């Protein structure tokens, strides 16, 4: 056992020396034609183009200046490395895990003494191995960038590459997590690639009013962080100080990567469990909440781009609660327990079921509500007391929406079998989020009082959150003249009623699961089933001989 293993324990990121996957992947990479081919393309793209640019600069009469050359070389190298670490590495990581699953070699690995976390870290390090080795050759080009005024000298380069590392960490670990959704390696790679392209393409999203924290949470902030000259400044306001976004993004990226790796490890251990689990999901929720809170500011200085002379807190608050809703949505959906796990836990009676096998609605309600209340509490520190009520109403609408989402998924997972349950839950939720808007459009066509027309719109959570958060802003007045807080309460009331209804359904379905689990008894290999006579089936799925009128395995029948 090496010193790092003793210090950090097996399975830690620093226990690479004792990870056979790392050692053997390094050997295999040397034989992989794709790795070799990719390295050649990278070397040509970076060094070849740099050499051409250098020649052009040296050529008399061409006019390429040092300033342009150094900026170009830096940008070229940075772009190549961004592609390498922002897309190539995540895709390869997803493909590696997907292929191990598809070829069932992951089963072999699971059977060995390598813990799931080590398998995960081994695959992650293996995905980085060749790209890191290849990118090290670009150090001369990076040094050229450090001498560029346009880049911002050393600080600009450091900022750019810190953002890139953060981006890569988030993207790669996220790609690993989603690689468990499809069944095949190439689908996992393709899926990860497409999702990352979509995420990276949404690079400007964090510039939209009140969505600045997305720059920290997503991979895009880092990608643009090196672009200077006041064009796309990725800044965050921390405790009143305007700082480069990467300072906040890097520790966040490490924390997010840790959470995503935990999720991936869970899936390597057992493919029947959810992705994140309650504990990791709660960590994610609290982390997002803290980021949303520390970047919250009503100071005009932190919203330079919006040409607002004075910022009212409603808009930033609404944006933050919407981000929180989206961030906690996977947790709300993922922590719903499948019927199989519930039955497994119940069938083990009198032994208590494991945590992953228990439907504990109130535990999830707590996990989903806590970040919302925390965010509302932290936000109200920085605003006038009059804005506290909108903050807490918006938090309540967000939390109640998440609880309804969770309960909907829970009912669906207890009632339907695969693959219907996922489709049904998404269908119901799609209706839940967007049907109100259609309803509002419909009522808009009818000659109804303004307040009646507003109610269906309020049932859409995003509208309800925005209405609640901006209720005390000068612009926060409903068309009907009714207090927006009252309208938000309609949404809250509907959510609460829906949650109680769904909770009753969960209880009913749990009762059925309990009855079903009681029928899963030992069926002895016996003479009750002479040759070819197992041709009757009871409602519980037991096969039995035709000599029996009723199923001999069901005490209730």
């Amino acid at each position, binding site marked *: 056992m090496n010193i790092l293993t003793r210090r950090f324990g097996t399975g830690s990121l620093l226990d690479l020396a004792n990870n056979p996957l790392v050692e*053997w992947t390094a050997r295999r990479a040397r034989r992989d034609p794709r790795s070799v081919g990719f390295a050649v393309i990278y070397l040509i793209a970076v060094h070849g183009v740099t050499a051409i640019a250098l020649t052009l600069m040296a050529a008399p009469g061409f006019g390429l200046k040092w300033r342009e050359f150094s900026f170009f070389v830096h940008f070229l190298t940075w772009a190549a490395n961004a592609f390498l670490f922002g897309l190539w590495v995540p895709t390869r990581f997803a493909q590696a895990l997907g292929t191990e699953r598809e070829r*069932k070699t992951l089963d*072999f690995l699971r*059977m060995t003494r390598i813990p799931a976390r080590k398998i995960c870290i081994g695959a992650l390090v293996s995905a980085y191995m060749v790209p890191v080795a290849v990118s090290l050759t670009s150090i001369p080009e990076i040094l050229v960038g450090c001498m560029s005024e346009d880049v911002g000298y050393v600080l600009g380069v450091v900022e750019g590459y810190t953002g890139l590392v953060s981006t890569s960490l988030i993207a790669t670990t996220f790609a690993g997590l989603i690689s468990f959704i499809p069944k095949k390696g190439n689908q996992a790679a393709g899926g990860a690639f497409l999702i990352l392209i979509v995420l990276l393409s949404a690079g400007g999203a964090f510039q939209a009013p009140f969505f600045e924290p997305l720059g920290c949470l997503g991979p895009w902030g880092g990608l643009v962080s090196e672009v200077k000259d006041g064009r796309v400044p990725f800044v965050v306001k921390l405790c009143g100080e305007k700082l480069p976004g990467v300072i906040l993004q890097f520790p966040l990226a490490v924390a997010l990567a840790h959470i995503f790796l935990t999720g991936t490890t869970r899936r390597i251990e057992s493919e029947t469990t959810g992705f994140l689990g309650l504990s990791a999901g709660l960590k994610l929720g609290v982390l997002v909440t803290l980021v949303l809170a520390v970047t919250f500011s009503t100071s005009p200085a932190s919203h330079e781009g919006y040409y607002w002379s004075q910022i009212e807190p409603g808009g930033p608050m609404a944006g933050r609660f919407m981000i929180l809703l989206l961030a906690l949505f996977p947790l709300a959906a993922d922590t719903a327990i499948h019927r199989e796990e519930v*039955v497994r836990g119940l069938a*083990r009676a009198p032994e208590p079921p494991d945590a992953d096998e228990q439907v504990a609605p109130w535990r999830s309600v707590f996990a989903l509500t806590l970040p919302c209340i925390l965010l509302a509490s932290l936000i109200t520190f920085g605003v006038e007391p009059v804005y506290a009520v909108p903050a807490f109403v918006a938090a309540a609408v967000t939390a109640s929406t998440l609880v309804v989402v969770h309960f909907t998924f829970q009912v669906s997972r207890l009632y339907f079998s695969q693959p219907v349950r996922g489709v049904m839950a998404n269908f119901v939720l799609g209706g839940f989020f967007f049907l109100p808007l259609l309803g509002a459009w419909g009522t808009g066509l009818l000659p109804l009082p303004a307040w009646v027309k507003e109610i269906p719109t309020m049932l859409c959570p995003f509208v309800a959150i925005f209405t609640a958060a901006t209720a005390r802003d000068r612009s926060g007045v409903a068309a009907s003249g009714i207090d927006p807080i009252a309208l938000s309460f309609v949404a809250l009331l509907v959510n609460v009623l829906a949650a109680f209804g769904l909770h009753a359904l969960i209880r009913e379905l749990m009762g059925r699961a309990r009855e079903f689990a009681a029928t899963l008894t030992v069926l002895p*290999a016996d003479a009750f089933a002479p040759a070819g006579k197992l*041709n009757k089936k009871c409602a519980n*799925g037991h*096969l039995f001989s035709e000599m029996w009128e009723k199923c001999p395995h069901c005490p209730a029948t």
Partner: protein
Amino acid sequence: MLEARGIWRYFGALPAVQGLDMAIERGSAYGFIGPNGAGKSTTLRILATLDPPTAGTITIDGFDSHRHLTTVRPLIGFMPDPFELYEDLTVVEHLEFFAQAYEVPRHQRKTRVDAALELARIREYRTSRCGTLSKGWKQRVLLAQTLVHDPKLLLLDEPASGLDPAARIEFRLVIRALRDLGKTVIVSSHILTELADFCDSVGIIEHGRMLVSGKIDDILQRLDPTTRLEIEVQGDTAPAIELLLRIPGLVSVKKGEAAGIIEARARLGEDPVSARVEIVSALVAAGVKVAALTARRENIEDLFLRVASEQATGANARKELIGRLREKGPA
């Protein structure tokens, strides 16, 4: 060595394994028989701890496999079907990797790998890339991989599928050798002749339900305590059949398909040899010219065909199955 109690596995609403009960002694070989889709592979994956059962408990070497997963897994050598290897590694590299993954001490690795290569009889291919090997040789590599950490329990799912007859005979010898080494072996197959040779006991599974389980002779005895006799006579069989029907202990007598052959089922009692002598004596005394009397011992094939569903095999399908079994079995 292994005890499974009340194992259920549902895939959605479909019960793939239903209330399975198994108890397998240390150092024994257990044949797991059933038609395709009966639930053999699902059961083996559950026993290998790769899939969780919907209900039921599994104890391996005294450890609950659910509670002590990390203790139990290294005790198991699992050979699934179908499978894939790391195709870019050579055979010896592949085995070294798994030896390392199973934390075989460094100084023992080479010996273990060599022993596994020897046992799986694949030494001559040690430097070949796994991707270049034929299915039969890959199967041997997988067997070697299964053995490299010296597991106590071997779960082999259709280990000889895709092998030629000679290789299949060799495979049987290997499995017998493993049993003799004290390993507990569970082999699933639908090629029954493969199992007959080395299995101490069998379990027949259909629709995910264990129909019968136990020692082959015990099961046969329990299902039908009579012995099948084949009597060859010279001349007309009718008087002989008439005579045989009067002999106590003979429960059914009928004309066989071939000329001069009579098929009978008899309760031979505790002294079967004397009982057979009495039958022959009675026939001879009545003037029947007896050419031969053979007491045919039923084998695993008969057992399966008697127990397995008529629905599944049907009259025509059964004939087809027998033909296929004979065709696929080793020469």
